[in-house]
């Protein structure tokens, strides 16, 4: 089946089998390997991407479902060669250890900030509760997302 979708602002057209999972389409066809595969059973959240701005687990979405829609992966966070505030904040606040869950954490964090510009610690913990960090580095992940929210709102007001 032919699909056309926009990934990180670029339109792609491909002929794929309906059973092709979105995560494999992103990784194998588009070669965007920042989106990871973890549990492959909708539990761990490392395959999270934004579908029209909303976080979804791409191991549990068929690529054909994204036909005509827009996807953002971690590779799409950077703007004009500059790290996005969420990326700067993870770097600054040691929001990662092994890095495996990090792309998903940053995408979920950026979707949260888009909806709630000043999330509380509880809001952040709630938002990332579908994403596992097996290094258990949650404290710094939460810190990073809150710092990114602050930087984003300062950027918006200055």
């Amino acid at each position, binding site marked *: 089946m032919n699909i056309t979708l926009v990934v990180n602002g670029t339109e792609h057209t491909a002929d794929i089998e309906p059973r092709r*999972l979105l995560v494999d389409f992103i990784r194998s066809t588009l070669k965007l390997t920042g989106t990871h595969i973890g549990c492959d059973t909708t539990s761990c959240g490392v395959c999270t991407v934004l579908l029209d701005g909303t976080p*979804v*687990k791409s191991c*549990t979405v*068929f690529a054909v479902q994204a036909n005509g829609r827009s996807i953002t992966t971690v590779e799409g966070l950077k703007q004009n060669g500059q790290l996005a505030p969420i990326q700067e904040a993870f770097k600054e606040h040691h929001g990662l250890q092994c890095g495996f869950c990090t792309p998903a954490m940053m995408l*979920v964090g950026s979707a949260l900030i888009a909806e709630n510009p000043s999330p509380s610690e509880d809001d952040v913990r709630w*938002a990332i*509760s579908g*994403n596992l960090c097996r290094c258990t580095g949650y404290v710094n992940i939460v810190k990073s997302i809150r710092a990114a929210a602050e930087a984003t709102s300062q950027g918006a007001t200055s």
Partner: protein
Amino acid sequence: MYPAKFDYLAPESMGEALAILAERGDEVKILAGGQSLIPMMKLRLARPSTLVDINRLPDLDAIDVQNSHLRVQALARHADVVRSDVVKSENALMASAAPWVADPIVRNLGTVCGSVAHHDPEGDWASVMLALDAEVVAVSKEGHAHFHPGADGERHTGGTRVIPINQFLVDMFTTLLHPSELVAEIRVPRYERGGGNYQKLERKIGDYATVGVAAHLELDGDDRIGKAGLALTSVYASNLKVREAEDLLVGESPSDELFAEAAQIARNACDPAGDVRGSADFKRHIVDVFTRRALAESLTIAQGGAS
């Protein structure tokens, strides 16, 4: 993991979708949120030869008030219920249960109607709807009154039948839905003075319930219980409506003693399996504790207290 091959159809109107269902019947599965169906297909527990993706059907994602009921349409996501002001003001039990369904990312895609149609005995929504005496609206091209004659309380109009939830849920993963039908909406009765609450124990966010208890109470003019709903998740072969406890509560003045008696009935009615989430005795104990808590919280809300 990959599902077996299937044909994928994405109709753009309800008429088109129902025509496909009428034609292809048994081989079809409907794809709404896909958060239970796709994992089952990947594990090859489900092998539909045709998937009908209904996500492109227009005007099918409302959560709103229609006459005497709250309507939840087929494409309303769990996250939509969490955010819905209508649900917050109209139905305390649904508002309390929604944030406990799956995890925040799964809630962005998974749907209430899909969860009920899937009827996993460990699903939260079926218990909520049993406690609320909701109705399921099934639509088809021709109408299917003749497939299940005699079901109590069923109403038919053209290609639509309205099925009481306790009739709709037949057994685990089994419902009254005919392969050519689609769950278009769920109708939840509105109430004047009422409240509800969902209690869920889970090992981690996103896990199935170790135990879930859905409670709903309505008060009459004399402050007695006019209507009561109680249903349990994950402690029986299917979601369990505890009618004996409901009957006990109706007509009585609410009290801790009364709620303890209802909890005892619930404890005896359930039949949990001991597993990695806990022993059968532990789960029975939690049913007892949660039933009392959920009823007490429902009462507080019904009396106009803070939730």
